[in-house]
């Protein structure tokens, strides 16, 4: 737990907030120069081995997805008679998607996911930034204890405590409401608090002091200075937390069994029942759920990579 101690020590010289964006390019440039180093990979045999392994990996990663994608466009008879590896006859047959979307409860699922996502993200950001501000910018009795309490909580995997958490949620009367998922997503997210804390330390204290001299109160400093400066960290948290909430299955499955409260994951899971062996419709449902992720990934690749790295390792 070296993290405990570093928080109490005098802070290192403030780094400019733009640091994370600038570094990968520099690293890549350095690596390009170091490239000659791994010489066996540059021999013809090494190159063949390298690209062959990469192509096999790409095939393994894409074939499962592509075949489901193709199945989603096939008609019922076509699916029954054609090979799974064969492309559909008509790439514009969208009937399966319509059935999945309207009769499969996917519309409701997307709606519920959107509501839960929006409220939880706002809550996570407010809670995380307020915690980081209070812990980093104030000297108060019990500060180390508070820090320790947040850090210790990172060690408790949420999956282990669900049976007991269930009683708490039930006792609060939140079972089978959207609030169950919302409070759990907000309250158990220690990682974003940690990301905010890390980032907070790179914002110079002199800014706070200057604002104080101008007569700003603590709340004003938080709202007008700190919060806007935390924007890059907020973007990171929105992305990684957003993806996690969109994909979450366990919490909605346990806490919101009602059909009307189905989110994307649970609606898709329920799908298997009524559509049983209708693989072309199940495939369309799976594709519908994957598409938003694919779009987000293509648009935000860089931020997702760097966000995950800082979220997972720190």
């Amino acid at each position, binding site marked *: 737990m070296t993290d405990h101690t570093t928080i109490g020590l005098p802070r290192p010289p403030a780094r400019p907030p733009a640091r994370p964006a600038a570094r990968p390019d520099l690293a890549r440039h350095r690596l390009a120069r170091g490239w000659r180093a791994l010489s066996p990979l540059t021999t013809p045999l090494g190159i063949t081995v390298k690209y062959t392994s990469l192509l096999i990996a790409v095939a393994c990663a894409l074939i499962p997805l592509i075949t489901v994608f193709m199945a989603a466009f096939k008609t019922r008879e076509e699916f029954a008679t054609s090979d799974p590896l064969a492309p559909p006859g008509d790439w514009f047959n969208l009937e399966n998607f319509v059935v999945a979307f309207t009769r499969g409860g996917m519309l409701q699922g997307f709606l519920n996911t959107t509501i839960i996502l929006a409220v939880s993200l706002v809550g996570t950001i407010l809670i995380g930034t307020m*915690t980081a*501000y209070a812990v980093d910018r104030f000297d108060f009795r019990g500060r180390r204890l508070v820090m320790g309490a947040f850090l210790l909580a990172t060690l408790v995997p949420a999956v282990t405590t669900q049976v007991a958490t269930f009683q708490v949620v039930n006792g609060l009367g939140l079972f089978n409401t959207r609030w169950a998922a919302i409070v759990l997503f907000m309250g158990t997210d220690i990682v974003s608090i940690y990301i905010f804390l890390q980032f907070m330390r790179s914002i110079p204290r002199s800014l706070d002091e200057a604002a104080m001299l101008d007569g700003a*109160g*603590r709340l004003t400093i938080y709202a007008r200075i700190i919060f806007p400066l935390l924007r890059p960290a907020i973007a990171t948290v929105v992305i990684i937390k957003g993806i996690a909430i969109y994909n979450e299955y366990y919490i909605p499955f346990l806490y919101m069994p009602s059909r009307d409260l189905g989110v994307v994951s649970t609606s898709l899971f329920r799908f298997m029942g009524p559509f049983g062996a209708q693989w072309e419709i199940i495939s369309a449902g799976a594709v519908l759920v994957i598409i938003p992720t694919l779009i987000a990934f293509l648009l935000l690749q860089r931020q997702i990579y760097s966000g995950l790295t800082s979220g997972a*390792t720190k």
Partner: protein
Amino acid sequence: MAVLTGVLARGRTSGSGRGPGHGLPVTPWLFLIVPLGLLVLFTYVPVANMVWYGFTSWDGLDPVKEPVGLDNYVRIFTDPQMFEVFFVSLYYLAGAAVQLVLALYFATVLSFDTRFRNFFKGVLFFPYLINGVAIGLVFLFLLRPGGTLDATLALVGVSEPPQWLGDPSLVNVSLAATSVWRYLGLNFVLFLGAIQSIPGELYEAADLDGATSWQKFRYIIAPAIRPIIGLTTILAISGSLSVFEIPWIMTGGANGSTTFVIQTVQQAFQFNKFGLASAMAVVLLLIVLLVTWIQRRLFPDERVDLT
């Protein structure tokens, strides 16, 4: 607002003093009250209750929770039906080992000049972002009799493929392979980030000394990414014990694919054995804490400074 301005007035120039008379210490708590409330309510209260339930035979409804001492724990470690889920974890642990090696290999290869680098990177990573239920369905489609895998194998002449999910001796291998497919990307990206932060001068210096590429991997890359390897190893071990989604979605725990968490959920919510389920959760938590502690002992340094 009076409180806020009161604290404001104390100023903060030295940053080191923390003695008495430093203004009203209420303000930080105003910011912390909601976060701490949620933290206590959804992390510490459940942990405390869980430990208590674990020593009772509570059914989840009865107002009286009957203490039964260590009975639940004895049952977990002696009842073969309870214990066999740990063997299922071994499949996922083996899968995790394969996953780490593959991720390390691809991260090393893609750290250096490779055509279509970003394309390969994206394709290897993307599965990690996909919804778990969608992955479950995609792999049910892939592994079902006559599905994609069987069709692919038929191309190379395998006419009688096994029942990937129906055969109890194979089901866990299939499910663990699905998990490898799902999580490889995360490990890969973590390794890639670590390798890219190694200064290139180190390779040049190694070149001058005539080091082979294995030596460079062994003495430059491996030590530099040691903390990440340590981290991914704990995630792998605690992850293989807490597998839930993939087997639950794909088989519902049938054919001997029940994992520790599936069993906990079933004991609690299907058989109303909250006491036993809580004891199982305590065991899982203790294993995770133990693994984390060992990892901290073996990889104490947070960052390795190579320069």
